[in-house]
Structures are given as structure tokens and as C-alpha cells.
């Protein structure tokens, strides 16, 4: 899995609450039994003029030239709510998004981000508004810096925001850990637990 330690990038704002995973990638864009080939479907209903088309909608923020190479999204409350489709995260990553700064996240989406090396980062509405103000006038120059080690987001030198993240999730991202491999090291413990457990809860065997 990709590691996430620090990142400096262009940020684009989708300042709306409840951007759901159907918006991030419509179901009809999940065409193959694969984690690849999803970047084109990212935000398809907004990025293109008509559903199913590939004609660029010039009004959508990511299509504007000043937002070329966007790698950070700024959004509102409950980003990634809805469907559990991990395709939303795979599509964001394939497009080049490395971090999402929002007021909150859907819990399944949040975990999917961690499992794929994408940083979901929570700041307050006011802090996100400040970042948006900073970016707005010249997104290519006014890049945002994220330091996961220090748990800080920096806009201009005077604008530094601290953020919280659970230690387990931070470790996973910083070291690019494979959760399954990590857990498999505990296989002996799991087997012992299971043996004991199924002696008590016999009907679950």
C-alpha cells in the first residue's frame, strides 16, 4: 500500500454536505470486476455534461484549468456517506487524489481510505472555509501542505491547523501497512481464541 507521510498539492473545494459515494462514482461506472479503470468514472455525473457521456462539463471545479493536478479535496460534512463501494476510493486514487479534508466522513468510506493509503482528514467548517479562501485566488500557487507525522495542515505560513487521527490509522498510513499481513502475524492468537470461543458458543460453529 502507498505510504502517506507528507503531501503538498493543489486543493479543490466541493463545499457541500453529504457528498455520497454514488456521486463520487456512479454504479454504472463500475463496469468490470477490477479495482482499476475507475478514474474516468470519478464524479461522472458532475464532470461530464450528460449521464453516460464523456463530454467535459467546463463548470465542474476539477475541469477548470486552474485546478489541474488537484490532489486534495475540501468538502463538507459526511463526505463518502452511502454505499460501501470501495470503488469510490479506488477512483479517487486513480484520478490522483491523495487526501480529503472534510468536516466528517461516512465510516465505511473512512476505513476504505485508510486501507488504500488515502488520507481522510477532519477539520471544522471554519477551518475548511479558511483553507478554501486561501486556495481560491490562485490554486496552483496556493498549495496546501499536509504533514501526517505532525498532524498538521498548513496553508499560508501563518495558517496551521492541527488535526486528530487514531494511532492505529496513522501507523497504517505512514508505513503503508497491509492490514491483512499484519493481522496474520496474530494467527496463533486468533486460533486459540476461536477454539475457546466455539466451546462456549457451540451453535455458531
Amino acid at each position: 500500500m502507498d505510504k502517506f507521510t507528507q503531501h503538498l498539492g493543489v486543493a479543490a473545494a466541493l463545499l457541500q454536505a453529504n457528498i455520497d459515494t454514488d456521486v463520487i462514482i456512479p454504479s454504472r461506472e463500475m463496469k468490470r470486476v477490477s479495482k482499476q479503470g475507475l478514474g474516468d468514472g470519478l464524479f461522472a455525473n458532475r464532470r461530464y455534461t450528460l449521464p453516460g457521456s464523456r463530454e467535459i462539463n467546463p463548470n465542474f471545479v476539477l475541469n477548470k484549468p486552474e485546478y489541474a493536478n488537484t490532489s486534495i479535496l475540501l468538502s463538507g460534512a459526511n463526505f463518502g456517506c452511502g454505499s460501501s463501494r470501495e470503488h469510490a476510493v479506488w477512483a479517487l486514487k486513480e484520478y490522483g487524489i491523495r487526501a480529503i479534508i472534510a468536516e466528517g466522513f461516512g465510516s465505511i468510506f473512512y476505513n476504505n481510505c485508510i486501507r488504500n493509503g488515502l488520507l481522510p482528514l477532519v477539520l471544522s467548517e471554519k477551518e475548511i472555509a479558511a483553507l478554501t479562501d486561501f486556495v481560491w485566488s490562485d490554486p496552483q500557487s496556493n498549495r496546501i501542505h499536509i504533514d501526517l507525522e505532525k498532524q498538521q495542515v498548513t496553508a499560508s505560513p501563518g495558517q496551521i491547523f492541527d488535526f486528530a487521527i487514531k494511532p492505529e490509522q496513522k501507523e497504517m498510513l505512514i508505513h503503508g501497512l497491509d492490514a491483512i499481513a499484519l493481522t496474520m502475524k496474530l494467527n496463533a492468537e486468533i486460533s486459540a481464541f476461536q477454539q475457546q470461543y466455539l466451546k462456549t458458543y457451540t451453535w455458531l460453529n
Partner: protein
Amino acid sequence: MLSDTDKKEFIIVSKKMAKTLFEKIWQQHVVTNLEGDTSLLYIDRVFLHERTGSIALKSLSADGRKVVNSDQVFCTMDHIVDTFKGRNDTTLMPSGQDFIVATREACVEANIKLFDVNDPQQGIVHVISPELGIVQPGCTLVCPDSHTCSQGALGALAWGIGSSEAEHALATKTLRVTKPKTMKVEFVGELADVVSAKDMILHLIGEYGAAGGAGYVIEFCGPAIENLGIEARLTLCNMAVEFSAFSCLIAPDAKAIEYLQNRPYSPKGEQWERAVEYWKTLYSDSQATFDNVITIDCANIGPTITWGTSPEHTCSVNGVVPEVKLNDNGLEDQSYIRAMDYMQVTPNMRLSDLAIDAAFIGSCTNSRISDLRVAAKILKGRKVASGVKAICVPGSTLVKKQAEQEGIDKILIDAGFEWRESGCSMCFYAGGENFGYQKRVVTSTNRNFESRQGPETRSHLASPATVAASAIAGHLADPRDYL
């Protein structure tokens, strides 16, 4: 006699020892504690479906990993399969067949029980898991599907996960889970006639917002919950994810135990006795404390419907579209403006003035036999308004069979509904069948998101009763006028 200080101490100690239902199930499943408040939890059951299960199984196999305890893993074909009579692997969704075939092959390879396209027990995962007795009180069950929280209705700790997490559960029989906070949502008072579990959950989300449950595991309780049947509880719990909760639970009571008796995968004989004895211990101790408590009086709940593109955009079915919400900075909330524009509604517009193009009864929210009975009661001897496309998709093949034995299919067909084979169908649009560009749909499903049911379709979430009444009226309508 205890002194006052002793009494205080006694209360503090008993409160510390007192546990919520969630804490009891959580502790029982902790294999080991990891960093911070994350634990490695033992997972009793994994359920998969062809939409997201196929990719999890394929990816697991590509990494050279195996499914452990495959006899506790189940899979169904529900998401992509067509719902027409005589269906097979081919689908209206382009490439849908690839998902079906890949899933079948992966299940054979991993030795996983599959409820295949034309299996008599096939159906929507959250309908068949309870129906077959696969989910049981006190067990942990995960599925790469967000509506897995439905199954908390039987007192299981069941929650939706992504594909990577599904691989983790399949390969290790565990998941690394950060402990959620606890919330008690108590429903007091009595529900009025025709007002249902769907109205209760829409009301809750409307009052507290689509992120109102974020970070919490919810226990639904109170007299109104006790009065609900198991199927209604499944409806209520189904939409906990639309409240952004980690998941939800209802303590298993005599109704839950009776519901599970003699189901195909329920424990039998002596095992049943042992299980029941244990299930009876699954409740929140009276002294147990929650991180948050919400109380809702059912007297304030009427038939509820959504006007916008988030489940929090609710109003009374005979009410009006609200004013645009203002955010903390006093500015108009952009998500409200966008939702109103998308739905082609304006503040103070009467919902009953909105003509509909289609009516849909189905999905893991409202497709069980009790839902179909309610719809049939309203539709009996009546006709769907001309120009309205009306479809009913039973939640499982067994529900369909039961409905046909009761003559419900005939009532619905006579009224003008299409009667389909079981599946998720048009709860979501995967590129195949849909309601059409910008069509307005009244639907018993769970998500009114943009383009969820078709290209720019406008979905209004409601109970099966409201869907049936609206189908007859040709516009959004109050079911109380059709009793």
C-alpha cells in the same frame, strides 16, 4: 444499612459493571486489543454478493490468500441480476454477467455457500440472512454492503465494510475495528395507524441530520420498538447507515427468538436451547450508560417522505418543501440549493402537487412479506394512475412465493403493478434497467441520491403504504386517504 457514601459508591460500581448490549457483544468478540481504542474482533459470519463480493474474492485469490472457515461464509446474487421472469446470467446491465460468473466461480473455488440466480432461497442479502436464520443474536456479521446494519434488528453486531475489509475478514476471521461511541435512541408512545418503521427512521434522520449518528453504534429501544414486528425492525435498522451510524442493534426479545425458531440455519435441538439461554442475556443493563441519548415521541411521527437528495431532506407527505437551511455563517446551505434544483422543487411547494412517473416497492428496506401485505391492502380493487410505471420486486424468492400463496401478486398485478423476481433491482442504477432521464419516482428504498435510480432521476423515499397510495393518485399522496 449502607451509609449515603456507601450507597453512592455502590451506584458508581454498579454503573461501571453495567454494560450496554453493544459492549457485551463487543467484549465477547475481542481477540486482542490493538493500538488505542482499536481491537481485533472475531467475526462469526461473512456475507457476500456479486457486486462487491466478486472483487474481494478475486483480489484475495490474486494475493495467494485463502478463505478460512468457508462454511461460515455465504453469498447471494442480488445486486446485478435481472428481475424478469425466466432470467439467467445475462443482464440488462452491460457486463453484469461478468460479475455473476466471476462470483459463481470464486464461490466454487473457495467452497462458499452461494444462493445462486435461480436458487429457491435466493434473495437480497439483508432479507435472506434473517429469513434463513444465518444472522443470530450476539453474533458478528459483516458484508461488503452498507445496509448490513439492517441485521442488527435481531441483536447481532452487523455492519457494512469495504472490499478490502471483506478480504481481511475472509482471510483472518477477524477485523481491526475502532470502538464506536454508544447512542440510545428510544421511541416512546404509540405509532398511529399506517405509520410505519420507515416513517420512524426517516423522521429520526430528518430531525437529527444524515450525519446525526456518525461515530456511534445505536441501540434502538423503547415501547414502540418492542411493539414492532421483526420485519419492521429490519426496516428501521436498515437505514441506520443513512444516519451515518457505524451500525445499530435491537435487544433480542421473545419475538426475535420466535422469529428465528426453525429457520434453515438456526440452531436445532440442544443447540437451540443453549443459544436461547444465551440470547436472553443480551440486553443493556439498567444501570448502563450511553454516550448520547435521543428520545422520540411516536405521536409526532406521521407518514414521512423525502423532498431532496439526502435522506435528511424529509417532510410530512401532506406538508411542504422547507425553506433553504442557513449554515453557521448565516449563508444559504449549498447542498439545499443544489438538492432543490435537482429535484425541481421550491420552498413551500406542496409535496402532493408533485406528479410521479413511477412507483417502486422493493429493496432491503421494504420488500418483505409484511411490506407487500400493506401495499396490497391499499391497492386491492384500485388501479395505478395512468402513465405511472409501477413495479414490485419481492426481497427474496421465498417472500415472492409466500406472497403468491396469499394472492398478493394478483392484487398488485390487477392494480397495474409489474410483479418481478427477487433482487435489488432499481434501488440503484448500474447502467441497465432504470426509471428514465429525470423521471420522478416514489420509492420504498433507502437512498434518494442524485442519479441513484437512473440518470438524473428524482427519488422520493417513503413507506410501502405511501408508495402504493401515490401510485394510485398519480402524485405523492397520504396513505391515510386510501385505507
